[in-house]
């Protein structure tokens, strides 16, 4: 079965609304990383968050490792937030990615 599951698969927001992206994983990972993929394809790391809560600007990452879940909260969304968000967990020597959440923020 899929080892990293993300929800929702896609999301449409009006500018200014908040979003909560979920990541659940099936193994005991020790690190969770959130990535943003630009529409052009570049993958940018947003958070490297093994546990607890981290903030950067309008983004908040929360990881609860012993419950095998993480979340990414986007507050006051902007059109420039549109793109695909991936979570990834370490499994041994490699990162295993979820299939992503596609976010579209309408003006």
């Amino acid at each position, binding site marked *: 079965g899929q080892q990293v599951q993300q929800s929702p698969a896609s999301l449409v927001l009006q500018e200014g609304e908040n979003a909560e992206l979920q990541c659940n994983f099936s193994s005991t990972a020790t*690190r969770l990383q959130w*990535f943003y993929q630009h529409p052009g*394809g570049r993958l940018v*790391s947003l958070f490297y968050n093994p546990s607890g809560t981290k903030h950067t600007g309008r983004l908040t990452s929360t990881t609860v490792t012993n419950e095998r879940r993480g979340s990414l909260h986007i507050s006051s969304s902007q059109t420039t937030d549109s793109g695909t968000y*991936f979570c990834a967990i370490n499994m041994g*020597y490699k*990162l*295993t990615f979820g299939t*992503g959440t596609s976010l579209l923020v309408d003006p």
Partner: protein
Amino acid sequence: DTTVKQNPRYKLARVGKPVNLICSQTMNHDTMYWYQKKPNQAPKLLLFYYDKILNREADTFEKFQSSRPNNSFCSLYIGSAGLEYSAMYLCASSRDRDISSYEQYFGPGTRLTVL
């Protein structure tokens, strides 16, 4: 500088022809990775170098080769491109192969189109 660079950014190849993609980093990272990313799919690890040791994933073992002439550079080589190789290829590096301790940094990707 946490930049990982990739060349070229876009590559057009003919079916049956070889393809060579280049990645570089100046962070003195021990480990360099190559991922394949297709639309609506998760990035998939193809192989990685830990120092001079190449590790290839079992399901893509015969499809991709790689070389690492020095710590800074790593290439991805496709001997005979097929249509199924069309994808974004992402290079990443980390300080160590123990990714439970160290973050991976990604390059901008090379978009390969095979015709």
